[in-house]
């Protein structure tokens, strides 16, 4: 060692196995850190005591029973769309078209409510709404699925563009069905007759949505983990060549899965139009199609964990919304906070998959 040798200060090594509890500990730590960061950002912007900020965030979701039900409703809808896109993601099909598929489902539901209000009884209208919205969502998801299967057309951009086509279609019908004339909006559909409104269960307006989504959760969980279809999805996602080798028809699986993915999105559209809003606007999905991508990914495509991740994101969004209202900030503040939190969680995956080795310490050990 006559000459000084410059060793790298540290280098990065891929981890072998990490126990699940440690992985979730790291993710939990990242969430905590992100909350601290959000608190600091908010304090910096509002000059408010950080503790007060957290109290406000908490109140945003649990302040009143109304807020709590709104939270539940939002979690349910986000979870529903996340569950919808998950089978596609497990297949490595990047469906970011949840937004459009939801819109199409909502459009179909609204169409049934409007077109048959004078000709069919309530029960028949609701049945038609269920069928048509699920079909509409499935078609909207199936189209990019078909082209992916046949010609390997890039699904990320295809589904993205389908969102805008759906938005414009809805915009078109918003003008066609506008009420009152000239408003460019549909307004509450069948306000007096409540035709096509999904039933209210137990006196709670949002309970139906929550229950339906719980059923979807159970369905998707079982579908992915215990059925032959679910197994085929995993194999296709992991390796298309293996799938072909064992005789799985990859094209069929892609199209079938995208039909399912779209169908569940369509169902979400039905719930939003038939139960939550009783109207149709172009922003009815409210960006959930994109947030759902993150919900699904953060939960590692595990439906059960998605309950937690969608709850977390909605909780923070409502909290940030509450901060905005209370401190007189712009509503977009919540987008910034959501972004900050996501960056922390996204970044934390690194520490789950990799380990940093400091050169000197290893030498001492050796």
């Amino acid at each position, binding site marked *: 060692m006559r000459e000084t040798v410059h060793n790298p200060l540290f280098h990065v090594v891929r981890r072998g196995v990490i126990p699940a509890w440690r992985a979730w500990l790291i993710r939990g730590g990242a969430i905590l850190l992100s909350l601290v960061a959000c608190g600091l950002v908010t304090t910096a912007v509002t000059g408010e005591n950080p503790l007060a900020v957290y109290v406000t965030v908490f109140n945003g979701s649990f302040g009143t029973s109304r807020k709590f039900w709104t939270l539940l409703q939002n979690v349910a809808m986000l979870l529903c769309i996340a569950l919808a896109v998950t089978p596609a993601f497990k297949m490595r099909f990047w469906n970011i078209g949840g937004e459009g598929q939801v819109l199409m489902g909502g459009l179909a539901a609204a169409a049934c409510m409007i077109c048959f209000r004078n000709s069919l009884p309530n029960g028949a209208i609701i049945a038609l709404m269920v069928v048509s919205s699920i079909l509409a969502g499935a078609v909207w998801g199936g189209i990019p699925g078909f082209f992916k299967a046949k010609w390997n*057309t890039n699904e990320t951009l295809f589904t993205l*563009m389908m969102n805008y086509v759906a938005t414009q279609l809805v915009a078109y*019908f918003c003008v066609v069905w506008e009420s009152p004339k000239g408003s460019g909006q549909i307004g509450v559909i069948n306000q007096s007759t409540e035709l096509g409104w999904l039933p209210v269960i137990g006196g709670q307006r949002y309970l139906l949505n929550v229950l339906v989504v719980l059923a979807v959760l159970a369905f998707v969980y079982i579908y992915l983990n215990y059925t032959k279809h679910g197994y085929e999805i995993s194999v296709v996602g992991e390796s298309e060549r293996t799938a072909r080798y064992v005789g799985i028809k990859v094209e069929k699986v892609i199209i079938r899965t995208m039909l399912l993915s779209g169908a569940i999105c369509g169902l979400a559209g039905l719930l939003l139009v038939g139960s939550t809003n009783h109207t149709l606007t172009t922003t009815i999905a409210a960006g959930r199609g*994109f947030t759902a991508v993150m919900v699904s990914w953060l939960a590692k495509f595990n439906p059960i964990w998605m309950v937690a991740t969608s709850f977390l994101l909605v909780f923070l969004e409502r909290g940030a919304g509450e901060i905005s209202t209370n401190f007189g900030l712009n509503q977009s503040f919540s*987008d*910034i906070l959501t972004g900050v939190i996501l960056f922390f969680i996204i*970044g934390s995956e690194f520490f789950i998959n990799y380990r940093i080795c400091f050169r000197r310490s290893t030498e001492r050990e050796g």
Partner: protein
Amino acid sequence: MFDILSFIPRAIVQGVPLLLGSTGETLTEKSGNLNLGIPGVMYVGAIGGVIGAFFYEQSLPSPEAIVPALAVLIPLLCSLLGSLLMGLLYCFLTVTLRANQNVTGLALTTFGVGIGNFFGGSLIKLAGADVPSLALSATSGYFSKSLPVSSAFGKLFLSYGFLAYLAVIIALAASYILNHTRTGLHLRAVGESPSTADAAGINVNRYKYVATCTGSMIAGLGGLYYVMDYASGVWSNNGFGDRGWLAIALVIFTIWRPNVGVLSSFLFGGLYILHMYIPSGMNLAVKELYKMIPYVVTIVVLIITSMRNKRENQPPAALGLAYFREER
């Protein structure tokens, strides 16, 4: 009557933000990074310029004291700085921490749009205007300044602000760099096969960082052009709309070639405003359908390129994948 002479310049001004956005994204994708955060980056680029211009205008004792060079430079630098930071954030997460690019990109878009609208909204409040928008006409005037010509030729070719010409120059330069220089060769290798580039002694991470950050800054200029020139310095929340996503679609439309992007972006710009030129009489609803055209066209192009399946027309082979040298 279809007024082609007014249509083309309007198509071009619509196309410029798309051109800048897609050139930036092409450079980024050539390094193997699929940055779906471009829409957010463009918002930040726009609001950066707005913030710079706003505080510069506020600092002036009177509107006459404005210095042209500063009126352009301050918003320009603020915009570049903002989009650079966004690019760095994306790189840190995807290159250094090797996070999933799709998710990071979407989060970046949420974040960037949030930043744009939050600061935009705050500035509107600060300015105390009674309309929900902010007008920076003084500085904007320098961005949209063009040669005073009135002939048809002048209208078609010389009637734009300097950023429009800059956009074309950047696109052509990017094309030249990619195809005819060593830097471009190395960049293409990084996007095609990072392990090969690495084994050849190319610093993969540095190329990814530089390409992605440069790409972000170029895309950010698209946002700046939109607000300072196209929108005459008027910021309104969500005004930029979905142009960021169209810019990403345009990358595919141009099969990763910035020089092709020049004309394609103007074509896209035309499609974007076509609904205003198609006579539809009293039927307002149909206009909404016409607005679908650019998206439908993108889908058609997407399908056609995937059907033709030519080797040279494929995306960079390592697009969307994180690189780790010691991966086994």
